[in-house]
């Protein structure tokens, strides 16, 4: 674990002055953020902006999971890295860059693939999970353990000139499997490219949603998915329905959700 000058009881009134003055945050909210542990899976295009945004917001601890190394094709959007970083481990580099930006941050790089072996331990020990990965299989895996451990999951994805962001509260909103957990007969023929700034927009949206949820504020998406398309500069919300037969979250709807715990609130009754 990389940790420098950490003092959990301290709120830096100067560094966070522009946030502390905001309604819904204040010194109490800033201190709350400093106590939170966030798991970010993926330190690429989405991970670059969202990691900086989380660190800047004053999240106390961030664990970064990524087994990949930096390649030249990453550099159009993965602003955490430089040309000289090609070939090096992303998670380790990202941790170092965040500490340069914010020395008080506690960061833990995990240079491994996420799997059924390490996912339970990682997800269980964090307050909130964020996906910044590039494939559906990993999202399905993350969603499964977020449902098991009732962790709020902030999800996002990008493609070409578009992207989406969503907040999944197991037992309160439809989960990733409810919508996208469909077995597909084939995958996309060619890997779609993405405009670098689109990853910046969606990664920033994910970070914003994460901070809102960690502060215990109302989920602004409330089970809907937010799609952004640069072609007409539109944000469109998509309402989805839960799958009553979902293998991951259907059982959670029959009992009070504890997912709100990650938001610092008492669990709500489920309709």
């Amino acid at each position, binding site marked *: 674990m990389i940790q420098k000058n950490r003092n959990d009881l301290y709120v830096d009134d100067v560094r966070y002055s522009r946030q502390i003055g905001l309604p819904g945050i204040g010194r109490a909210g800033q201190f709350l953020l400093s106590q939170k542990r966030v798991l970010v899976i993926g330190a690429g295009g989405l991970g670059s902006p969202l990691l900086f945004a989380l660190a800047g917001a004053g999240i106390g601890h961030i664990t970064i999971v990524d087994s990949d190394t930096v390649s030249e094709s990453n550099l159009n959007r993965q602003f955490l890295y430089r040309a000289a970083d090609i070939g090096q481990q992303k998670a380790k580099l990202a941790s170092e860059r965040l500490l340069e930006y914010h020395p008080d941050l506690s960061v833990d790089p995990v240079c491994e693939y996420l799997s059924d072996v390490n996912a339970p331990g990682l997800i269980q020990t964090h307050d909130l999970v964020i996906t910044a990965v590039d*494939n559906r299989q990993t999202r399905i895996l993350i969603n499964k353990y977020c449902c098991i451990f009732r962790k709020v999951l902030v999800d*996002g*994805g990008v493609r070409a000139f578009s992207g989406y962001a969503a907040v999944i509260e197991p037992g309160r909103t439809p989960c990733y499997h409810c919508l996208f957990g*469909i077995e597909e007969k084939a995958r996309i023929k060619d890997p779609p490219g993405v405009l670098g700034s689109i990853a910046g927009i969606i990664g920033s949206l994910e970070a914003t949603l994460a901070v809102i949820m960690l502060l215990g504020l109302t989920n602004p998406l409330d089970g809907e998915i937010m799609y952004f398309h640069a072609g007409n500069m539109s944000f469109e919300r*998509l*309402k989805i*329905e839960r799958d009553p037969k979902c293998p991951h979250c259907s059982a959670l709807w029959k009992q009070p959700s504890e997912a709100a715990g990650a938001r610092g609130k008492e669990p709500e009754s489920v309709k």
Partner: protein
Amino acid sequence: MTIKYYAQLIDWTGCTQEELPVTADAYSCISPVSGSTGKVSVRMVLSVLESRHKEPFKENIYDSASDTMQDDFFILLNGRHLARLQGLDTLVSDTDILSLIPVTEAG
């Protein structure tokens, strides 16, 4: 019914959403699907949309001639994945919302 498009489907169709009345008359120009009960299915809706939007829709979403749906997008009916219903044979009504969404997985 309302058809909603997301992401690059907006570019392919030129709109974010459109209305399609679900009545028998609205489909009189469409060849009946084999085995059709006379009611309106998602397959029939896609055929109408293909005739409206021509090649971009045919190439990227649905080709009625071969009854082929591209596999890199999702169709939701009232927020539920079509695969969890009756697929393209799912029947629709005039108050339904059909959402077409591209698979968006990169990070």
